[in-house]
């Protein structure tokens, strides 16, 4: 295609964005480079690193050496944390989708004038600090909290539930926190969806569930994939929510990394873990790009 004069001019003007580019490259890749280097150094005695090449951190990610007899075994605690992180992130994605789909559907089917209001309401939680919101959830889930008061008050359960400081608490908290990130892309996809296709489905003998499965879900797939990535990625690296609602006992990768830089005094291990987290996220993103690329090829 022939380039217009404007396009050419815009291309030549890229130098103007140099300051922004520099900042972006330094701010994004700088810390990453430091982390990548630290992961191959030796841990300092109290904190920091000693500039000696070492792969010990990578070994420690999965294995531990007994301090008395020197036998090597799998680091069960680490595996538990990895598994919990992945499992809770996947479950959070699933739950936000389960709640997010009807919500997004509801908003997308409101009259045009009301939609802005509903979308606005969805974004209100972002106005408050994450920590404050997480403490609010804590207040709800506490043994003497609102949830237990209601449930025991209504005689649905005889004893208050111990939800706080369990995986369930972390899951509830993360679902609450990341729900808007699922709702917004789903809404965008449903908003573009041609509702007449539902009638076409019914007309061709598909029942309600079949129309959902064979017509609606495949067509809004880009929104589902985008929402899932937007929820899964930050869930995996979540720090505040598992810290507060998991009470430090139910750690996720984020907390574990923090621990290495703090009380654990093992910066190289923390760096290696951070890189592994980055790798998992990278794989998730590749999946996303693949999924949306095949969508484009189809369309």
């Amino acid at each position: 295609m022939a380039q217009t004069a404007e396009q050419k001019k815009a291309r030549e003007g890229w130098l103007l964005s140099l300051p922004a580019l520099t900042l972006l490259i330094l701010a994004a890749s700088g810390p990453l480079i430091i982390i990548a280097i630290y992961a191959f150094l030796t841990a300092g005695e109290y904190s920091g690193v000693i500039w000696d090449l070492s792969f010990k951190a990578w070994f420690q990610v999965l294995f531990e050496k007994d301090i008395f007899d020197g036998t090597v075994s799998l680091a069960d605690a680490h595996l538990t944390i990895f598994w919990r992180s992945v499992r809770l992130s996947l479950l959070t994605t699933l739950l936000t989708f389960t709640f997010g789909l009807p919500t997004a559907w509801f908003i997308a089917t409101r009259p045009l004038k009301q939609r802005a209001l509903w979308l606005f309401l969805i974004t209100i939680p972002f106005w408050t600090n994450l920590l404050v919101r997480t403490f609010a959830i804590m207040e709800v889930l506490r043994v003497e909290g609102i949830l237990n008061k209601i449930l025991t008050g209504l005689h649905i359960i005889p004893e208050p539930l111990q939800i706080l400081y369990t995986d369930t608490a972390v899951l509830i908290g993360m679902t609450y926190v990341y729900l808007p990130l699922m709702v917004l892309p789903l809404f965008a996809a449903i908003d573009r969806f041609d509702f007449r296709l539902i009638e076409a489905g019914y007309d061709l003998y598909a029942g309600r569930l079949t129309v959902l499965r064979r017509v609606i879900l495949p067509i809004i797939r880009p929104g589902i994939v985008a929402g899932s990535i937007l929820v899964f990625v930050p869930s995996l690296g979540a720090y505040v929510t598992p810290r507060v609602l998991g009470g430090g006992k139910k750690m996720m990768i984020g907390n574990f990394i923090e621990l290495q830089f703090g009380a654990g005094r093992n910066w190289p291990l923390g760096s290696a873990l951070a890189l592994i987290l980055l790798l998992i996220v990278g794989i998730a993103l590749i999946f996303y790009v693949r999924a949306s690329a095949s969508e484009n090829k189809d369309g």
Partner: protein
Amino acid sequence: MTNNISVDVRSARKVYDATSGTVVALDSVSVQIRKGEFFTLLGPSGCGKTTLLRLIAGFESPTAGEILLNGTDISGKPPFERPVNTVFQSYALFPHLTVRQNISFGLEMLGRPKDEVARKTDEVLELVKMTAMADRKPQQLSGGQQQRVALARALAPEPEVLLLDEPLSALDLKLRKEMQHELKRLQLETGITFIFVTHDQEEALTMSDRVAVMRDGRILQVGNPRDIYTRPVDRFVADFIGETNFLSATIDGKKVRLATGDTVAASGVEAHSEGAAVTLAIRPEQVRVDDKGGLAATVAETVYFGTDTHLHLTLGDGSELVARLQSPPSGEIGLSPGAKVSVSFTEGAVQVLEH
């Protein structure tokens, strides 16, 4: 005889709740559509054609009245339990499926065996001449091709009734003519009852076995195209189906007396009492223009249309009349404004409207 009736609409009424109050989209409509016929709902935009189709398809339920298919009431059934398929005005093809997958969708949903689905799909693809495009996505097709796929998709499950909501309105004139023939051919080949919606009177006349003319949620007249054209029941039908001259007259014995004082022969006189004021409908092509022997008229204007020339005439009492004459080879009709002529009507051309 009810066994040759496919769709029987009995006093169907549909009221929508809109923000601006309620809208009566259909006002007690009754109509019987015969098996295997090409039935057309004709009327201006907003007269309730789509609403009637949607009631038959099951997308809406009637506020009152019932709808029977082959003698059984289907009013309470959801669309996926009715052996009725729709060709949507917007086509509504599934964008994530190929042409072939779109067409086999209905058959799959009916739980037909795989080989039957494949065979039937190929058959229908052939029928609408889209075999070469079978693996394309709908977005890669032109409007006319999408139209064919929509048609094929609705035909594949071999429904009892096919509903078509202005399926040709988005096509350009040439393609529309082509598809009109195509539709007619498909209807004859498959023998399926077609209920076709259009606001184009010519389309309705050329394609249909019978036509129902609708206005404001009511059916004004049902009949075959010739009946509707030659014997419209009222001014609206006469005007909607082609151009018509309307003249006021009074019943005078077996004839009618015009405002000019002349009497002319007319059909439909019996339905009215002596001296009643009535409206006459006369098609422009049935008006003859001579030198003498008829009503005195003055040429007001001549408009050349190619094959035809329209002659706008003024009668003695000032009422206006249009005559459509075949243009002579020279194109010059030889009458200029102000010319005095004599007007008469072809035998049976003057219709007294029922109301």
